[in-house]
């Protein structure tokens, strides 16, 4: 494979698969945050 092609493949992997990992981390983090509804309950 050419250097250019390898770079583009790695970039695609980092963005798309990395994006998936970040999205999953965000979802896990949001489980621990109070939602707007919960915040209303605390009023």
């Amino acid at each position, binding site marked *: 494979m050419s250097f250019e092609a390898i770079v583009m*493949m790695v970039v695609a992997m980092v*963005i798309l698969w990395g994006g998936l990992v970040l*999205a999953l981390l*965000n*979802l896990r983090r949001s489980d621990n945050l109070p939602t707007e509804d919960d915040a209303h309950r605390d009023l």
Partner: protein
Amino acid sequence: MSTTVHEEAEAKRGAFSSRKVFMLAAIGSAVGLGNIWRFPYVAYENGGGSFLVPYLIALLAAGIPFLLLDYALGHRNRGSAPLSFARLSKGAEGLGWWQVGICFMIAVYYAAVIAWALRYTFFSLNEAWGDDPEGFLFGEFLQAGEPGVDATVVMGVLIPLALVWLAVLVVMVLGVQKGIGATNVVFIPVLFLAFAALVVRSLFLPGAGEGLDALFTPNWSALTDAGVWAAAFGQIFFSLSVGFGIMITYASYVGRKTDMTGSGLVVGFANSGFELLAGIGVFAALGFMAQANNVAVDEVAAEGLGLAFVAFPAIISEAPAGALIGVLFFGSLVFAGLTSLISVLEVVVSAVRDKFDMTRRGAALAVTIPSAILSLMFFSTTSGVYVLDIVDHFINRFGILLVAVVSMVVIAWVVRALPTLAGHMDRTGSIPLGKWWIALISVVTPIALVYILVRELIDNIKTPYEGYPTWMLLTFGWGAAAAVIVFGFLAARSRWRDPDALTLPQQDTITTTKGTVR
């Protein structure tokens, strides 16, 4: 309405048992045949590595925002596509039925492709196609004659197609969680593992590097071509299963406190992540085939039916341990296809159930049996492949794409529901939908989709699709696309069996010292 009455009503409609099940079902719907056989070729044809730029922009600026619009519609309105639209505005109900009509039509032909893939999973074991996969596909297997309509039944297609429908019937009768949810919880991880194994196998074939070179070498000048951008937006749009009722329906089965924006982000990236995996697997295999035949990759690159049922059989015949590649590849197509077929059919079942206040079993049987009969009638015959090709081409463009644009514009500019929908999503969402989302949904995405639609319209008027006879294009192409519109607006005129159906269930009320909050 008290919370318990709510819960009872929702339990009666059906619900996913958890967010994880919902997300697997949504991924199962989004990841379909297009991810495997369309994306790799579209990326390759439209700039290779540089296609990543428009593709990513399309995903973030149109794909995920549109997915969130569907989620908001279904999750807020707690209903199938027609009910969700009707609860926004009675006049918009027809849009929901138009989507239902499209889904019905897709289900009828999509099942046939799954049946072919099922058959090919077994053909792979003894390489039944010999040394002429194309001749075998159209001759011995499909027994296709001249384009037209012929009622001669092909048993080799009829039997697997009947099996596919039987499996779908069981899933639909079992319901949202025990049927759809359970199927996806098993099939999606298996699909991922099978495809990952296929990718690893393909990467070790001689010539794989050349295939990946062809896929990833960037052609930066392609970025100045409007057609490349249209291809990126089109790929994202078709791949995510947005705009024709599926995600509305699935979102209506999700718990009220679920983080829908966060879930949407995961589904969007999982779908694109799988496309990338498919691209690597498919082009590694194509690289092998090019090397084995001493030709350039561009001579073997293909998409759709040609890639799956002509190019892959050739690869399977030539590669060491080809049968393994065949079972993994066609098995993946079957699994990816079935989870998408189920989601398409659920749009119809859910709508019928809501409108006529039917039981799950009643609605599932009332929808699945007629679909199966029509599917067997049209697609197990010697002319099935032509009808399928035409319906698929037209219903994608002048069905899905058209209804998506029209409903988006109606919601944004006529009903003006975007601020309400954004407010709903923000109640439990981890990513706030601000003005940026409203701008993307009301301006950017419709412009991109209208542009693609107009290009397609001009192309299809100028050049009759694949040179089929005009009467066939008018009946199964333009006619089918128009018929679902007429059906949609007629269906919306019939009465809801439950007179209170259009009342939006109250959100759980929370009383505070400052009064009642929502």
